């Protein structure tokens, strides 16, 4: 048994309460401090209380989250694919690649359609952004960015400008001039500034506003003319990889997906996160609204695509197969929302029946990862971009009576 007595080495003003008392020499985070014994005890109690508060808050948060899952599950009276049993199965799809766009010197990372239904803009790891008339396969404009890995690009609604960005942490807008000889780079306008890479960008219904998402975990809305930040969106706890604007005439919402496995729906006006979904097992690489705006699909590194409905407030379908083990990088709906095109890191594009949950076609042809898949504005074709440096535009040829298995080859023109 030992006698524990603290030797008061000094007597003087306490660092905390300033009263003259016998002081205890203690170390707080490697810094020596002099507290009187009362203050030392108070500090210990506070620390304990704080730990308790954090723990109680955590417990409360967890229980509310669990309760929410319970409430969501209560209304789950039937599966989507069960209700879909009453509609006809789709015929077998024969798709044909009708255009192959070659010109990028490295991986194609992103592409977007122009509203004129035939032009596209694409960006690549080689730093180039190219505007093509995909119908004629002519390159109409080309810009060299000052950085490599241009991960995001978008066409302006007017068709008169494109936006792009990537490792430069910025989103820049280039007006497209009719004069082919004009140096586009000279007219470049830096609009968005993030503190990490730009993962995705999209014009709103206007050439004047751009919505961006970034590796810094935030999304932001910018005024193009002034570069002013109009609204920022915080809530993701990791990189945001993708966003999509709701297709409504009256809507002011968009959905984003990120490396925190969450898909968040945001109010553009207030900056608030209005709904959140977390059922994926890995990064969400891409999000896309169902054409009515009532639901959205996600593609993830967990090798599944999922459909979330905003009215049911839950995940309503999973599109997966045992044989698909590589992540889905990009998703898009056909015009009616019946088909979901998904590009994967195993170089294929799988086409899913959204309602029945089955796969209706698998398309080979790309020689490396498919990084982006977008259906054209009038739904007549879809374009896929790949790490094999090419872009392909494919369309539906016909239905056939044969089983799915035979009609899976991409034929080039």
């Amino acid at each position: 048994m030992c006698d524990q007595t603290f030797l008061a080495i000094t007597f003087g003003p306490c660092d905390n309460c300033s009263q003259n008392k016998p002081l205890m020499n203690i170390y707080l985070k490697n810094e020596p401090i002099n507290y009187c014994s009362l203050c030392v005890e108070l500090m210990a109690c506070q620390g304990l209380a704080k730990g308790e508060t954090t723990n109680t808050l955590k417990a409360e948060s967890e229980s509310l989250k669990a309760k929410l899952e319970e409430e969501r599950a209560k209304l789950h009276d039937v599966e989507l694919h069960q209700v879909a049993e009453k509609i006809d199965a789709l015929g077998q799809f024969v798709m044909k690649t009708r255009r192959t766009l070659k010109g990028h010197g490295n991986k194609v990372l992103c592409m977007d359609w122009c509203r004129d239904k035939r032009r596209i803009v694409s960006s690549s790891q080689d730093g180039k952004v190219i505007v093509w008339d995909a119908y004629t396969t002519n390159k109409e404009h080309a810009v060299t960015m000052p950085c490599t890995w241009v991960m995001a690009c978008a066409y302006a609604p007017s068709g008169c400008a494109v936006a792009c960005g990537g490792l430069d942490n910025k989103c820049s807008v280039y007006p497209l001039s009719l004069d082919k000889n004009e140096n586009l780079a000279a007219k470049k306008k830096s609009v968005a500034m993030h503190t990490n890479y730009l993962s995705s960008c999209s014009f709103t219904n206007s050439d004047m506003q751009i919505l961006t998402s970034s590796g810094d975990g935030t999304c932001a809305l910018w005024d193009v003319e002034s570069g002013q930040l109009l609204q920022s969106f915080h809530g993701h706890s990791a990189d945001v990889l993708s966003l999509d604007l709701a297709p409504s005439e009256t809507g002011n919402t968009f959905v984003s997906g990120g490396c925190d496995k969450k898909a968040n729906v945001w109010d553009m006006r207030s900056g608030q996160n209005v709904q959140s979904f977390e059922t994926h097992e890995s990064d969400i690489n891409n999000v896309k609204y169902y054409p009515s705006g009532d639901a959205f699909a996600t593609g993830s590194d967990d090798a599944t695509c999922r459909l979330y409905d905003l009215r049911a407030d839950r995940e309503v379908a999973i599109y997966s197969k045992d044989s698909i083990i590589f992540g889905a990088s990009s998703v898009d709906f056909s015009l009616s929302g019946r088909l979901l095109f998904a590009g994967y890191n195993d170089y294929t594009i799988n086409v899913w029946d959204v309602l029945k949950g089955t796969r209706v076609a698998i398309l080979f042809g790309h020689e490396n990862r498919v990084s982006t898949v977008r259906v054209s504005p009038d739904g007549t074709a879809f374009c896929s971009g790949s790490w094999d440096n090419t872009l392909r535009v494919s369309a539906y040829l016909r239905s056939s009576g044969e089983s799915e298995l035979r009609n899976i080859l991409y034929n080039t023109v």
Partner: protein
Amino acid sequence: MAKNNSLHPNSNGETDDSPNMLVYRKMEDVIARMQDEKNGIPIRTVKSFLSKIPSVFSGSDIVQWLLKNLCIEDQVEALHLGTLMAAHGYFFPISDHVLTLKDDGTFYRFQTPYFWPSNCWEPENTDYAVYLCKRTMQNKARLELADYEAESLARLQRAFARKWEFIFMQAEAQAKVDKKRDKIERKILDSQERAFWDVHRPVPGCVNTTEVDIKKSSRMKNPHKTRKSVYGLQNDIRSHSPTHTPAPEAKQPTEEELREQIKFWQAQLDRHRLKMSKVAESLLSYTEQYSDYDPFLSTPDPSNPWISDDTTLWEMEASKEPGQTRVRRWGFGIDEVLKDPVGREQFLKFLESEFSSENLRFWLAVQELKRRPIREVPTRVQEIWEEFLAPGAPSAINVDSKSYDKTTQNIKDPGRYAFEDAQEHIYKLMKSDSYSRFIRSSAYQELLQAKKKKSKNLF
């Protein structure tokens, strides 16, 4: 040799879930099943001309196994998956540098776990130089350098000219160690080593499967895990795959963050939800309604420009004369009319004929306001106020008093959303009143029938 418990999670109960590791784990699970004694692929030693080929199985063995065990319905799909697994280096053809799967009698061998990609290999060029140099010291015809390897060796000799003596010594030492091994063991190890380099220094033209998405690579670069030295230290050998090793601890949320989370969950709990059956019916009916307009479900009329190389469809859509299908779509809902510029025009024309166009004009003006640069917003807000809402406005609209009061407040500090409440009210009004009148109007009905009369002259 350090023993690694491959399934040990960290204190949070998490294992390394980074995207690449997820895929490696899945492939390794398949490999484990392939190597299962009972249900796996039969591995055998084949008697060749003068010698034995140890530990091999055929390409068709792999394809058949995949078809049976992974519920793959089609041979092409099985071949594709198998090729990907080979390209990542999990098994390899014993007589080819190109890592692809063939559905025939070609022989394949499993890669040793030491060389699995999940070990985060990033071998340096010096190691590659040692390897190529070592190969030239072996007097076997089958181990001769391929053309691309000889070129690489020449390049490396130039690049590492100053330390070539050291590299040569390393290669000699490695060759010595190799010679001491049992002949059969050596065959296997040599092929596995070669396959490793085929993954990390692929044949020109082949996909380099070690390339990573730069967005994900920062999370993978764990310096403690990256293996760079192939021929260096012998004592960091791991026989277990680290795809199940623990991830670094996540940051603990602060008190404030937790309070925000609680508020968020409470708001979510208060949300009104629809039953799944109702939602499903809604999704089905939407898709049904638009299936005639989906070029992937029904062939467009006259044709899909991408298939027929005829742009008539687009020319028709660009013209001011709306076709019957387009007009029919306006009947699906007010959003369809508002979305289509020709629809908007027709709707406006109809309302003007009824002297009730101010609602639509207000709605359009507010939409347009939100598309302006922020600089122009204050002026435009004033103009809209004067035109539609101010006392004595020339195109006065009727909004409920609550929205009116709010708007009066908003215009004192004019922003893009100054008229949001008023616009919402007007939209609801138009939807229930003006829109239904438009659809029932003779003007609309005529357009709907018009194609029947004009079809001969349309184009």
